[in-house]
């Protein structure tokens, strides 16, 4: 992917979530990890790049194209990308399989048979075949998030956005989901994620950006940022979150 964010501003009432944020990544970046303190703006940034929110000012350029402010154009952008939320956001009235099939049929124009085959293939691939016809409430958090991940990636998205995909999961389920994400990245999927899992960010990302107070404080390759952070604020943050590792 190639990414160029410039002067992004977003206010929620009197709260400034993004404060003239800029970020540029060269062509060929596979995985960008956004880290930083809660409330620092990393989720907000991700939702903007994913076309879910409109900025008050600034521009976003993804793979050489500026994001439009027109809802129809943005919908087209969202359709060719995938977005995974912290809280899974599966549709509770549909089974795991139906959750995957519905957008394939309604948004991507697949026939129900094609969509069903795709859903089953992926559920099998990720060890979820026995749960295909269960409702979300009958699945564990980790299983729900894996189904949601399949729903987000099954239409071969250009970019996959992951918004703290494991924040609501226990350690074991976290591993289930992260293994799956790593597999996708190794398979060539371009990913932008926000995460509190520093070990994971370090292992899979080829760029890590530290977001705080609505700005990028530091953006570097993972080894560089984790081993020799330049900004004192990043140093402080890393030493605190890695204290018990």
């Amino acid at each position, binding site marked *: 992917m190639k990414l160029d964010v410039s002067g992004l501003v977003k206010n929620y009432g009197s709260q400034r979530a993004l404060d003239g944020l800029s970020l540029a990544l060269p062509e060929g970046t596979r995985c960008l990890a956004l880290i930083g303190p809660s409330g620092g703006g990393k989720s907000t940034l991700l939702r903007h790049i994913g076309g879910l929110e409109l900025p008050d000012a600034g521009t976003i350029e993804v793979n050489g194209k500026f994001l439009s402010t027109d809802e129809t154009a943005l919908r087209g952008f969202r359709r060719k990308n995938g977005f995974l939320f912290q809280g899974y956001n599966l549709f509770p009235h549909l089974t795991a399989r139906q959750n995957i099939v519905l957008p394939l049929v309604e948004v991507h124009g697949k026939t129900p048979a094609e969509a069903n085959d795709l859903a089953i293939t992926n559920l099998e691939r990720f060890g979820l075949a026995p749960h295909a016809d269960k409702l979300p*409430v009958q699945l564990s958090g980790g299983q729900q998030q894996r189904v949601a991940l399949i729903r987000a990636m099954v239409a071969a998205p250009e970019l996959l956005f992951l918004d703290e995909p494991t924040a609501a999961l226990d350690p074991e389920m976290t591993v289930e989901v992260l293994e799956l994400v790593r597999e996708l990245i190794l398979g060539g999927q371009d990913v932008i994620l926000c995460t509190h899992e520093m070990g994971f960010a370090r292992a899979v990302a080829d760029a890590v950006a530290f977001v705080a107070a609505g700005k990028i404080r530091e953006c570097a390759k993972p080894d560089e940022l984790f081993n020799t952070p330049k900004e004192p604020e990043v140093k402080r943050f890393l030493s605190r979150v890695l204290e018990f590792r």
Partner: protein
Amino acid sequence: MKIRTLLIGSLVLLLLALASCQVLASLRYHWNWSGIWEQRELLLRGWGLTILISLGALAGTILFGLLLAIGQETREPVLRAVCRGYVELIRGTPLLTQLLLGYYVIAAAFHVDNKILAGIILLTSFEAAYMAEILRGGVASIERAQWDAARALGFDRKQTWRFVILPQALRRVLPGMAGQCASLVKDSSLLSVLGIAEFAKQTDVAVSTSSSPLEGYIPMAIGYLALTLPLSWLARKLEMKWRAT
């Protein structure tokens, strides 16, 4: 346990029956069922018309109520205000007033000569305002995250309502909707003031012809119960079913 419930139930019923007999006896009422029996055809036709009006108004209420509920949630401020204003106006005035004004002023102005059709339309426009509020409550209870998920998958507004929001909202409010349907059946009795020959009106006619009020009003109560009890039963059934999932 079952037998005990049955015994207590029968005992209560027996006591109620004895008490009712006592009250009736104190009236020194002279029963005369033959007078009403002669009017059976008239009553039956009235009951049939009540069913017809109820079914027509029921279909109209669900459709119109749905439109009013969606109208209040659109981004179009004028449409939203009109729907909101309509609901407030209808809920703030007595049905009797609406029927009289609606029939003698509005229906007359638009040359709606068919009394039954006018009755169905007036009843629909009343019940739809309540139905809209029930539905709106259901829609409001759907988490923000569901709208987000639908948007992220690339659904447009119409698809979001159809596949994500309404199916969930309807499940939550079906018991309330069934209750409103029962109210609709009972409210249809007020159409008698317009001279529509429905069940309540025909009962009145039969009672004055035969001069036997109790013999008319008791079957009238039973006639309405025969329509509303199945609706209540259905509401309870649905409530249990959705609670299970």
